[in-house]
């Protein structure tokens, strides 16, 4: 998560400048939010292709509806509310969509569908770059219940305040904290076998 310098212009000011015709202001906003937003979407929908579609869609909506932004909420709240709504829509579609079982063999073929489609898992580059621990954490996060996962991602990836998350999700701040706590407990349990690796990583982090 990128730390923002105090002298940086506020998101709301940047959006106002963009509305006034300054395209550079929008670019600044995009640079500021591209990575956390994309990862929020990626961990929410658990599919890179879908995440890319949604990522583009969210920014297009920002462009289309920036005149509707009244400034009574923070830009980040507005942006993630759009993103969350898109994710909810996507989840609903997925619930009603019938998928062929990846374990079922296709007619006239000995291979299962899962064996024939490209591997949707982490690429070799990704594995080499971040290591097995990171992949494992990502998998654990993706297995969190929906309500806990979104709170966890908004807090951990974007670094939003609990109050702001509460606005986006539409529950109280205490509920958000509870969900965050449950999410961390679950992750802690899921990653218990990797505790040693985590401890090893900790000093390296402090050294940095």
């Amino acid at each position: 998560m990128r730390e923002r310098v105090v002298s940086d212009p506020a998101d709301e000011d940047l959006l106002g400048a963009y509305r006034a015709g300054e395209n550079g202001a929008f670019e600044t906003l995009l640079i500021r939010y591209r990575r956390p937003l994309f990862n929020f979407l990626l961990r929410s929908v658990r599919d890179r292709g879908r995440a890319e579609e949604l990522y583009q869609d969210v920014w297009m909506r920002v462009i289309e509806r920036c005149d509707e932004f009244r400034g009574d909420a923070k830009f980040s709240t507005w942006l993630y509310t759009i993103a969350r709504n898109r994710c909810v829509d996507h989840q609903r579609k997925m619930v009603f969509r019938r998928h062929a079982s990846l374990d079922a063999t296709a007619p006239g073929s000995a291979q299962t569908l899962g064996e024939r489609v490209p591997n949707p898992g982490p690429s070799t580059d990704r594995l080499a770059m971040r290591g097995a621990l990171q992949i494992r954490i990502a998998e654990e996060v993706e297995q969190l219940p929906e309500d806990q996962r979104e709170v966890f991602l908004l807090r951990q990836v974007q670094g939003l305040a609990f109050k702001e998350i509460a606005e986006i999700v539409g529950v109280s701040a205490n509920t958000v904290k509870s969900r965050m706590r449950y999410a961390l407990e679950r992750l802690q349990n899921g990653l218990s076998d990797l505790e040693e690796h985590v401890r090893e990583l900790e000093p390296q982090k402090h050294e940095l």
Partner: protein
Amino acid sequence: MNCEQCEEQVFELIEREAVDPAGVREILDRCPNCRVLFDEMKAALVAVDQLPLEDPPTRIDADILRAAMMRRGKVKPIRKRALQAPPWAMAAVALLAVGIGVWAIPRDTKLATEDEVVAPVAESDQNVVAAPKPATAPAKLDEAMSAKAKPTSPLERARRAEPIAKTPVKPSVARRERAPAKRKARRSSARQLEAAGPPPTETVGVGAEAMDMAEAPAEEVGAADAARAVVSPAAEEGAKAEADDSELACKKTIGSFEERRRGDADFRPGPEQQLALGRCYAKLGDEKRARTWLERAAAHAKTRTRAQAALKELTTGGAR
């Protein structure tokens, strides 16, 4: 801080530890359970801090930026809100305009209208006639009179007479008119005044019975010719013969009054008669007497407005 509060604020405590480690340690030392929770959450956060963050494809960012640059600033259509007031406001303004319009109607005009409306019936009653008839109400009255020319019974006559009595502008006057005692008194005084005048003929449907029908207008004006003299510009500008008739009627009215008074020194005319006398004297040019009678009539609530109007007219006429 109790356990419940500690549980609620565990993330705040983790953040606070960076700036106030001693304070946080002091809180956690009080409760082992809170310390366990604190350590678990902290460890989990450290673990998930390794969550890999991936970048979106740069081509998508480029597409987004291109779309952002293509967006033209939307110029909102100018809403003519000032001209498009809400319907309730328009209705309020319309009502206000109507109210001002009604309020702005001159009082003299109103009085003149009243008198003009009732005048013809009084004339027909007294068989003095000659006033030019206003366009609407008198025509209706004529129709009513002709349609009811042959009443069959007193009750029917009374029923028929009532609508005519209501025809004048003021409904309150019409209601008062229905009071039998007053009606009787006025009838007798009117007869006294008219004793000297020509008897009503059958051709106009008047007489002792027709008095009921003409009563309301007669009460309203008393002497229709006087009313014409005061408020009807048409009479002033009308034919000379009509004016002569009007003066003749006034002379008769005054004559009958004086005759009545000679016979009975205590005779006191009623307000309507006072008003009629005042108007007649004004018509005949006796301003002093006219003023005397009109002032007396003005002392009565019933005839105050009309008497004051006549006085005003007298003053205006005198000034001219």
